């Protein structure tokens, strides 16, 4: 596996070559994300099973503001672009670029979270609480767990930013950025599914 060897140097100096050539941490992240698919899959299936079964309003079509959520979905998707740019920057050895794009990614993620906070509070004002009906329960738990994942991602990105300021992310450590990137892209992809299934499918 020639292509993986570029990141090999990112592993601690003692790391012995692995049987697949893939860094252990990268493989761990992939397996973890595989497990997360089932985690979100179960939540999404629960949402679908309960679709249209609420005994009391408000119902989805009364409350969703699709243009608004489309904008915040767009913001989150753009953060995947800045994440890629951050990784590309550190692989070039461009520390300034790394910091700018990490900050941009964290910022876009935070804007998404702010949008979700606003959306949640306006839904609650309109009478849709976590306890109101099955729609409220399934909607808030599903999107809430997604938001929780985004929050962890933002903290991770800011931690990387701190590490970079301390000079602890050199080009040979680009795997640290790549791992956060894998997680971040996954969270974005999950949002595409949630956005489609929850908001767009009538």
């Amino acid at each position, binding site marked *: 596996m020639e292509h993986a060897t570029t990141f090999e140097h990112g592993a601690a100096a*003692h790391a012995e070559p692995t*049987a697949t050539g893939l860094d252990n941490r990268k*493989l761990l992240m992939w397996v*973890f994300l595989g497990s997360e698919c089932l985690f979100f*899959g179960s939540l999404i299936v629960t949402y679908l099973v309960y679709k249209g079964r609420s005994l009391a309003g408000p119902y989805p079509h009364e409350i969703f503001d699709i243009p608004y959520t489309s904008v915040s979905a767009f913001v989150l998707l753009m953060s995947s672009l800045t994440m890629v740019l951050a990784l590309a920057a550190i692989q070039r050895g461009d520390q300034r670029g790394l910091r700018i794009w990490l900050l941009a990614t964290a910022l876009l993620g935070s804007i998404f979270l702010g949008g979700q906070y606003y959306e949640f509070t306006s839904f609650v004002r309109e009478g849709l609480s976590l306890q109101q009906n099955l729609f409220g329960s399934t909607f808030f*738990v599903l999107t809430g767990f997604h938001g929780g994942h985004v929050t962890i991602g933002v903290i991770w990105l800011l*931690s990387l930013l701190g590490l970079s300021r301390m000079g602890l992310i050199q080009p040979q450590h680009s795997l640290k950025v790549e791992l956060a990137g894998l997680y971040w892209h996954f969270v974005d992809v999950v949002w595409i599914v949630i956005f489609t299934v929850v908001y767009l499918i009538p």
Partner: protein
Amino acid sequence: MATTVPPETGALGRVYPVLWSWLTTVDHKRIGILYGTTAFVFFLVGGIEALLIRLQLAVPDGKVVAPDTFNALFTMHALTMIFLVVMPLAAAFFNYVVPLLIGARDVAFPRLNALSYWIFLAGALLLNASWVAGTPADVGWFAYAPLTERPYANTHSADFYVLGLQVLGVASLAAAFNFMVTIVNLRAPGMSLLRMPIFVWTTLITSFLIIFAFPVFTIAVTLLLFDRFFGTSFYVVARGADPVLWQHLFWIFGHPEVYILILPPMGIVSEVLPTFARKPLFGYPFVVFASAAIAFLGYGVWAHHMFAVGLGPVANSVFAATTMLIAVPTGVKVFNWIGTLIGGSIRMATALYFAVGFISMFIIGGLSGVMHAVPPVDWQQTDTYFVVAHIHYVLFAGAVLGLFAGIYYWFPKFSGRLLDERLGKLHFWLTFVGLNVTFFPMHFLGVEGMPRRIYTYPAGMGWELWNLVATIGAFVIALSVLVFLANAFTSLRYGQRASADPWDGRTLEWATSSPPPPYNFARMPHIEARDVLWHWKRERARRARETKAGEHTRIAGGAVDELDLATLRGERIHLPRPSIFPFIVALGIVLAATGFITSYVISAIGVAYLLAGLYGWAFEPAG
């Protein structure tokens, strides 16, 4: 020489260095020992629970325990045996043996490995704290919602279930990630996938099952937690919820879970048989693919636990068909095991007794399993003692016998001493007789209509005789465990010293000393064949014959020159540095969980611990 970097010892470390060394250990072998001893303690706890159940049911109108206590006993017995005994005992073997089998110095993530153990211990203690709190979990191991909703289970008993299993799930997932990466990435050079010992294969497949089954359970339990603590209505039927949503989510996890329990013992048996038949495993690739097929099919059969729900003829037929299909790869394995024994020059060691016991008893459990696959038959058997008989034939007579085979086989590797074979055979025969006397009559009771999970029954139902027999059998099993404990304790002290390779083994763990040094192998082995140690021994014997047996006459049974520790000359071997952070993170997780039943302040402290532990972990030099 190995360079073990001393950890930054805190005050605790200076006062209790031994305790500190165990709290901070990241050595897969020591973690394996922790898993094994903890699981065995819970085996005794779960066994005592079983004896109380059997005492209560020994005669009609039993008065040994109160009805509520009986509910708690069968719930905690099942949870203990599944999550605190069979899974962690398998994990003990994963930890101790798998890195040795693949020629690695440790697992891929030693600190994550320690974390798995500490979270497991924390979850186990949290679950059992329910006894101390006076509200033991009493909702059945399946905890069917909506019966576990507040109106029907308004004590902390269901909370302990929810929180304890949530914590235990994290431990299992962390371990599964670790072993998946370890097996895929840390195999010694030359060990291709189809040269891996079968136990490594079943560990890998079990890890996959955990990785893709546990998240579903996590969600099922999380939704219940939201219902119980935050007023949602995921399982509240009066508010439109589906009364069988929990059952679906639970069994989508629950059926793969039974393969999580049985595949590791199957792997152990596949290691023990060839060694004591002195013959390679018959049809190795078939055993590998059959194991994978069992796991794959295992995701498509969950509704056979729900035939009595009334899902309709189409669903029932489909799940009946997929369930019967699983009998095919299982049968393939049984025939391959028998094929391994046929024509072998068999040594009747205790480990082989247990392995053969496993095969014969597992067939009984497998056959009653195929009976359950037929919906009309299943309707007769659902919630009767017939099902209790079935699960004990697969889990006790299957999994536990297989695990004991592993204990007798690898005990010399763990401890450097052999278990006594005479006591071992006594242990085997007591177990074998005891389990059949206990569990076989349950088939009769089930067919006669005795429901499971009833705390007593009136006289005159025709159930007296077999209940009494089953209770007597349970005490025979208890006696057998005492024999084993006596054997283990005396052998640890006075047992015959084991050489590196007491069984003329086939696999790498027998190429290093008993017990192995912290670094496992002084030189990294290069794997040229399946059953590589036999290959080396044959090669050496051939060379010895060719050189007319001069100085190099140490053949089978001795340490292997290529990996001989004596050849280790001042090489520096890197070992992972001990760390206290896994312990701190696990403490944080269990505090966060405990806060739900005490005060959210404790949860907040737990989260603070968790974050502090994670950051300390991230910035700690990994070694």
